[in-house]
């Protein structure tokens, strides 16, 4: 069972109250981008066994979107943060690095 604390309302939300939104912090390429970049933006996703940064919506609650960092293997949650932030905040990176030495955030995925 996955429990995420919604940073918008503070409720501890069960997975069944949440709507998954896939990988977070994708680079939205514009209409002038080459086909390869557009294809990558639309279709190419990492599917890690381990640390994953995702978008979730508190659908059966306050209705807001937010970000969450978790491990897909253990379901350990490293933290949640508002949707308006464009990269994982330092405390969340530190929490991940403490459990996964060598993990580093890659900008501009």
């Amino acid at each position, binding site marked *: 069972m996955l429990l995420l604390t919604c940073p*918008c*309302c*503070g*409720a*501890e*939300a*069960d997975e*069944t*109250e949440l709507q998954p939104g896939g990988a977070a912090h994708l680079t939205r390429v514009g209409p002038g981008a080459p086909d390869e970049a557009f294809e990558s933006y639309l279709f190419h996703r990492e599917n890690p066994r381990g640390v994953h940064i995702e978008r979730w919506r508190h659908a*059966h*609650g*306050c*209705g*807001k979107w937010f970000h969450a960092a978790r491990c897909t293997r253990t379901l350990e949650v490293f933290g949640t943060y508002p949707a308006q932030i464009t990269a994982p905040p330092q405390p969340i990176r530190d929490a991940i690095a403490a459990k996964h030495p060598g993990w580093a955030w890659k900008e501009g995925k």
Partner: protein
Amino acid sequence: MSDPVSALNGAAYDGVVRVEELGLRGMITLRGDHASVAVKNAATGVAGVDFPDALACDTVGERGLAWMSPDELLVLVPYAEADRAVAAMQAELAGTHSLVVNVSDARAMFRISGPAAREVLAKLCPVDLSPGAFGPGDFRRTRAAQVPVAFWMQADDAFALICFRSVAGYVFDLLKTAARPGGEIGYFPAGA
């Protein structure tokens, strides 16, 4: 004009708890910036209660304010006053970015009361309902089995629950099933 009737016309069930549909209740959605003085004044002026904290609600009788999201409140008033309350809030919020809608007829409200009330809701909703985690005045939007609901604790052994009118029959059936005699679990301390 036709006589309004509530979704289940006051249906009730006595099991390990009492489940009642509460009939017609005034419910108004108010969306706006909670930090705005105009929004605060409009809501508290009509409801006559204090502005609620996050995940909380403040009710006195049929009046109250419930914290629905960082930019949404549920304003509770007697059914007959809802249209007047909407007009009063819209007048007060003229010029303020906001939305006020009478949703009374789109919703149903239930009361679940009895020492096992926590247990009955805990069977249906993925919410920590232990006495240390949820108490009187706490408010939570969640789901009951397959549909969205919201509930708050009125007293130590009573909850009010709202759902969409279209699923009132489904929610009543769920509550009745969870409250059927023989299904007691006794997980929470009695009377807590």
